């Protein structure tokens, strides 16, 4: 298979997923506002959990669990984005 530009782009996204344990764990903008303005506690727990908070459950090392979650998500989104585009294009031609 010939190497195409988007193979490189996908590899780049996967490399970013490898860096995910380095991400800041500080609250994000909305969480910061919610804490400062006193409405953080109104947040409800999720109805169900699959890979909550980007940490693969059942893995002792949090860094590895985060990387795995990142790689799984990146591959899922590539597949969905690619698949959706392909589907829309086929429909558009018909």
């Amino acid at each position, binding site marked *: 298979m010939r190497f*195409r*530009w*988007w193979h490189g*782009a*996908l590899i*780049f*996204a*996967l490399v*970013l*997923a490898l*860096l*995910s344990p*380095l*991400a*800041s*764990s*500080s*609250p*994000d*903008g*909305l969480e*910061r*506002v*919610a804490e*400062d*303005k006193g*409405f953080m506690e*109104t*947040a*409800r727990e*999720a*109805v169900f*959990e*699959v*890979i*909550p*908070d*980007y940490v693969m459950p059942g893995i002792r090392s949090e860094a590895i669990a*985060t990387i795995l*979650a*990142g790689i*799984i*998500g*990146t*591959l*899922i*989104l*590539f*597949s*969905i*984005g*690619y*698949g*959706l*585009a*392909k589907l*829309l*294009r086929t*429909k*558009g031609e018909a």
Partner: protein
Amino acid sequence: MHIPDGFISAPVATVGCVVAAGCVAHAAKATNKKMGEKQIPLMGVLAAFIFAAQMLNFPIAGGTSGHFIGAALAAILLGPWAGVLIMTCVLVVQCLIFQDGGLFALGANIFNMGIVASFIGYYVHRGDASLFGGHRKRILGSGGLAAWLSVVIASIACAFELAISGIVPLGVALPAMAGVHALIGIGEGAITAAVLSFIMATRADLLEIQKA
């Protein structure tokens, strides 16, 4: 900026879901008319890149972090409706699999980070480019500005949803959300400009897609 369940009221969440569903349905129609062979892998890698980049929270002032959203980048590269579709894919997966953003708040999150951010990003970039001409440096500048504004305006939309839900007064939510996201948006602008400049240097033809 992913709203968890509980931050917005049932009516606000419901309106968000209805508006998001309508826009996504239209986005699917609008996108398939423009879909070419090149866009297929581009949509895949953009969704993958945006997801991965969103995981990388960067610290800003005061023990707070922010992350890339990516709607402006997607909209600049593929148009606002494709931007809406890509962001919807990312937000749905984040919500259903990673429990980031509430299930009932999904519509509101798609509205803020998908629809509002894509259209602001796209039209600010477009407007700026047509006002000042499409010079290469200008494209980066207008891309960065568009990305910054997309985050700030999305955060203002979020502030309105919180206020309408009665969780926090608008006079409190608006300056707080816009203020912190004005900082986070600098990261968004920098990443967007960096990716655009990389694409310009390596695959400038991808930037032409929107003009065609």
